């Protein structure tokens, strides 16, 4: 299994990192909070921790800490436009249930 990016997501991530001027990749993870138990974490990454699991996708580094990995392994990160709004979307095969907003989930 792995954590991957769609081509569209990869293009946007590269663009954001280039404009930001620094960063070795992005960090995906989960934290325990939110209305359905878990919440996604999506951040720029400046340093890799020794324990990080690193995935290479479309020439980008995706860092995941080992505690988060079981919850998001197999996830494909997409970039979507919905009306005026746009942003990243987690297509996560592990989730059993998510709150209406999609920001938190249970596995």
């Amino acid at each position, binding site marked *: 299994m792995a954590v991957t990016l769609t081509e569209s997501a990869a293009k*946007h*991530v590269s663009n*954001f990192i280039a*404009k*930001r001027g620094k960063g070795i990749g*992005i*960090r995906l993870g989960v*934290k325990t*909070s*939110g*209305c359905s138990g878990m*919440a*996604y*974490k*999506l*951040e*720029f*990454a*400046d340093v890799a921790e020794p324990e990080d699991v690193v995935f290479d996708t479309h020439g980008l580094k995706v860092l995941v800490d080992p505690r988060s990995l079981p919850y998001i392994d197999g996830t494909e990160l997409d970039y*979507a436009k*919905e*009306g*005026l*709004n*746009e*942003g*990243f*979307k*987690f297509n996560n095969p592990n989730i059993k249930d998510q*709150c209406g*907003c*999609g*920001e*938190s989930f249970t596995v």
Partner: protein
Amino acid sequence: MALLQLSEPGQSAAPHEHRLAVGIDLGTTNSLVATVRSGISVVLSDELGRPLLPSVVHYAAEGVVDVGYEAQARQSIDPRNTVVSVKRFMGRGRADIAHIESMPYDFEDSPGMVKLRTAQGVKSPVEISADILKNLRTRAEAALGGQLTGAVITVPAYFDDAQRQATKDAARLAGINVLRLLNEPTAAAIAYGLDNGAEGIYAVYDLGGGTFDISILKLSKGVFQVLATGGDSALGGDDFDHRVFCWVIEQAKLSPVSPHDARLLQTRAREAKEHLTQHGEAPITAKLSTGEFVDLTLTSEIFNEISKTLVQKTLGPTRKALRDAGLSPADVKGVVMVGGATRMPQIQKAVGEYFGQEPLNNLDPDKVVALGAAIQANLLAGNRAAGDDWLLLDVIPLSLGIETMGGLTEKIIPRNSTIPVARAQEFTTFKDGQAAMALHVVQGERELVSDCRSLARFELRGIPPMVAGAARIRVTFQVDADGLLSVTAREQTTGHEARIEVKPSYGLTDDEVAAMLKDGFSHASDDAFRRALREAQVEAQRLIEAVQSALKEDAQLLSTLERAHVDACLGKLQAVMMGDNRRAIDDAMDNLNKATAEFAARRMNQSVQRALAGKKVSELES
């Protein structure tokens, strides 16, 4: 499904706690809203992908409020109810507004801020601006998928307190939490400064639709400091349009034109001006309502000639700002161009010649202010990245002071002081035994109070009787981070104090804003009305039933005439009861109550008599 944005390391928001903040450039001609998405400041476009929202509001007779392009389309059809460049009226009285005689509006002749009569009643510039802000807020909330935490709204550096307060009031009315008002050139510097990481002295030359601002900024190690500001709050791209408009009138030998034709020609003038940015000449053709045809060609040479004095007019404040900062044009490392009007080639050329260098244009001059405001809003909302701990220093645009004997201004906070700031000065009494002192707060650079803008007046009472000159009254001026002022006067021996939050003469009082907010909650008041009506109907029903049952039991207590009167009142109440006129219901209930008062008294007597009949007095006493 919520869409997520990339956060700075360690800054991922908890679910439902995204701090959505936007920057709003509330411009004279166009307004924009921008936000920071995944670390990048972007302007939010509408459904059709248009980034600009024309600052135009149309009030239709049938109650519809159009904002932006829809309103602009109504300009030539319905100029009287289509408000353009409302920013020029913010915090302004009639006397302050240039070219008021050629405007197609129906101004209400009232003291204080000008008000416009429209098809939807009298509108203040604050309400009209609020309609623009509401539109931007709706756009932002649709684009960000949630409620806004707050916004940074930009204002020209030259705006005085009255104009700043009016802008804040408009935001409040639009339901926007103002994180901060930010000077437009400072916002532009933020956009450029962060994107380019450049250090040194910069000039921001901002020629918008209705205002000109020049600011001298120092950027070093991520710290922005505004060294000096200057400008002209009644000079902008609109004035260039007006010059072309006047030229057309003169060339075509037109007699005074109708509001409709004036609007049409102003639009043609603006189009010609924009055309000249890319071309050497521009055709101006129009068919007027009088049947006259206008067919002219405006060349760059003619345009340069008729607008030369306007271009020169921008260089005066530029020189003054540099002098205030103690600098010469050679000290300036770069010139940032802001505002659509800076696209005019003659402006680029004049600015380039004055500073001896090509002005910077690598960001869109229409968007740069909104982009910078969004960056500031993002930081103020708490979405800050590690290392983004830079400080923003802003300055007082005009000196603040009080009136002293003889109508002279005593400056307490000089212009270009960085804010927030507090300064105090001691004053004394003028007459023996003087028990009170009137304080008149003014803003401006002139020596005579009559040449400055009056901001507020208040009184300090309870000064103990002393000979003239013995009392010591300490007056403290304090300006918060938004550039808004509070003044305190304190008599030093007794500690008597008087204080005022500057309610600029042209600003709205809290009550007025509250009243407007209440108007906005029209649904709430509808509900309250319905509730009161319902209560009246229930009460009426109860009364009718009581009277009817009494009539059934004791009809013999009434004469025919009395009975007829009661029946009439009863009928009347039944007739109005199911309507929605609460007053009519109340009145009918009153009448029925009065008509039956005597009847009720007789019934009471009768029942007492019945209860007493056949009983001895002694029985009753026990």
